[in-house]
């Protein structure tokens, strides 16, 4: 269940070794789907003519990628798992073992579920690069499709939490009272590590709870579900899907709230406020005292009576 906390130097080389090959793989797998995606984008932005052309060109691919029958769905899933297995073998197996059974460098991934992979790889934490107290989020090295394939592969190894659906992440229908309850849940369960404004905070020995303001609802949900690194799990049975949705709704509401009182000073509370007191307040006033005590421009060489 642990992700890379023990992974150190070998994990590093593994990641480096894996990357070039991984990319070639990525192009092959991704080309078809990304074409479809680009077609969809055109569909939205460029009107019917473009859609017709696009569909004409990529129609076959589209049919493959969005199956309409169960048989083709199973087939697509099997393909996806197979793609995921190949990616895994190249990029992850050096630490997590060829069959994801875990090694000294990385924990077993059997039973961690698709949500864990989607979070770890989707936030760039995996593949890990540098040893340290904690594996930081980085630039994501896989495409969405590759992440989906990896997730599907790991999910196929044993039952575990799956990636939350769009409905689970939809916070648009929450009432103010539900958002307020999300706030209570957030302050009770999350704020002690992530700060009341979600700005993050320190843990022991250089570990930290990350800032949540840039995190997507999906990754926040997955983190609660799977407990990445030092973070504890908040299971669906205790913090229900509805509770999680309210928590995410509260965080989204905080993001859309204007900073009522001016610059937020990092939202870190009294430490930055104290710095502002001294640097901006006392600093500017001391400069002003120097100005007040200075005399008007003197005329050089002219002496008074």
């Amino acid at each position, binding site marked *: 269940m642990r992700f890379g906390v023990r992974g150190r130097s070998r994990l590093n080389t593994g990641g480096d070794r894996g990357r070039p090959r991984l990319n070639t793989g990525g192009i092959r797998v991704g080309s078809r789907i990304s074409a479809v995606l680009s077609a969809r984008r055109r569909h939205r932005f460029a009107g019917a003519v473009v859609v017709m052309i696009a569909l004409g060109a990529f129609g076959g691919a589209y049919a493959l990628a969005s199956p309409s029958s169960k048989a083709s769905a199973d087939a697509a899933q099997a393909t996806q798992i197979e793609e995921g297995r190949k990616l895994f073998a190249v990029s992850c197996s050096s630490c997590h073992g060829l069959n994801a059974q875990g090694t000294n460098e990385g924990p077993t991934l059997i039973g961690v579920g698709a949500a864990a992979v989607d979070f770890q790889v989707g936030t760039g934490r995996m593949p890990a690069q540098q040893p340290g107290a904690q594996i930081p989020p980085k630039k994501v090295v896989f495409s969405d499709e590759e992440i989906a394939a990896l997730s599907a592969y790991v999910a196929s190894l044993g039952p575990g939490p799956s990636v939350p659906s769009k409905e689970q992440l939809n916070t648009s229908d929450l009432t103010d009272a539900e958002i307020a309850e999300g706030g209570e849940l957030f302050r009770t*369960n999350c704020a002690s590590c992530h700060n009341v404004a979600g700005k993050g905070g320190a*843990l022991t020995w250089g570990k930290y709870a990350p800032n949540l303001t840039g995190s997507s609802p999906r990754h926040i949900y997955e983190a609660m579900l799977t407990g990445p690194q030092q973070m504890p799990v908040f299971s669906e049975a205790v913090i229900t899907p509805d*509770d999680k949705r309210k928590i995410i709704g509260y965080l989204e509401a905080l993001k859309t709230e204007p900073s009522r009182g001016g610059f937020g000073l990092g939202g870190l509370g009294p430490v930055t406020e104290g710095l502002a007191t001294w640097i901006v307040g006392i600093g500017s006033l001391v400069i002003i005292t120097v100005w007040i005590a200075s005399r008007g421009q003197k005329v050089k060489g002219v002496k008074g009576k």
Partner: protein
Amino acid sequence: MSSDLSSHGEVAIPDASGAGDPIPDPGLPPHEPRLTDVDEQAAKRAERQVATLFGLAALLIIAFVVAYLVVPRHAAFLGFGASNLALGSTLGLALLFIGVGAVQWARRLMDDHEIVEERHSSSSSEQDRAEAIAVVRQGADESGIGRRTLIRRTLIGAVATLGIAPIILLADLGPLPGNKSAHTIWRRGTRIANDVTFKLLRPEDLELGQLVNAVPLTLEDLPEGKERNNARAKASVILVRMEENQIRALPNRKNWGVGGILCYSKVCTHVGCPVNLYERVTRHVLCPCHQSTFDLADNGRVVFGPAARSLPQLPIMVDADGYLVAQSDFTEPVGPSYWERG
């Protein structure tokens, strides 16, 4: 004390500085005129500058009033609260301009010849002292306080006794502590509920690595406000689940958990902040206030920071309906230490 009197009957200050040794005081330097003193044009410019600042301040106050009336309370501007920004910046700048104008007036246009004022010693003259003592003596003699010892002593006694009155009046500020600090509302069989939602918990609801912030279900029975808040301040707990073989329970705590689920007080033993920064891998919990760190796999032992005592553990079990319940109240007082704690 020097006693040389100046002509006004005040005491001159004995020279307390090494001034003049070895270099004699050359005296005040001559006054250097400012540009505004010799150049009428410059003075006019300075006058206009000051007047402009005052005029702008008046305009800004008008803008402040307009902002008060026009800007809606909840509007945003560039991601900031528009009302606060508009009111504050107009008011602040207006005040600033008035101030800068006044200072500039003083700096550039008011006469800037330095004035010398003589000092006198802070002490009174010998004569004044003698007179003062005489006056006090006379007063004391006339009252007879020195002679009439009975009056003096009873007066002192009465005033001293009077001091008891305000102290006794404060006695109703609060109840006596009794042993309230030693107990919480946990009892044998009290169900454990998730905080905020009051959802009951079964062992299987908790996954490996889980953290649950929980309260006794009986908290809900208490009237809202003081009673519930006071009970919550002591009875809040955290539940964590770890591999059973990771737990190093004391011999008498072997059956305090349920299948790797352990329950600890959420109140730091240092000064009482809620502790729930749980690191699932190290199984340490950290207090965000002063960073006391407790090892939950090791009976809540302190592994870092200023807390002196282990985090109290609540023995738990499963009741007939399959819910997690307390085996008893905490076996020791929770929260910060206090004198009578022992």
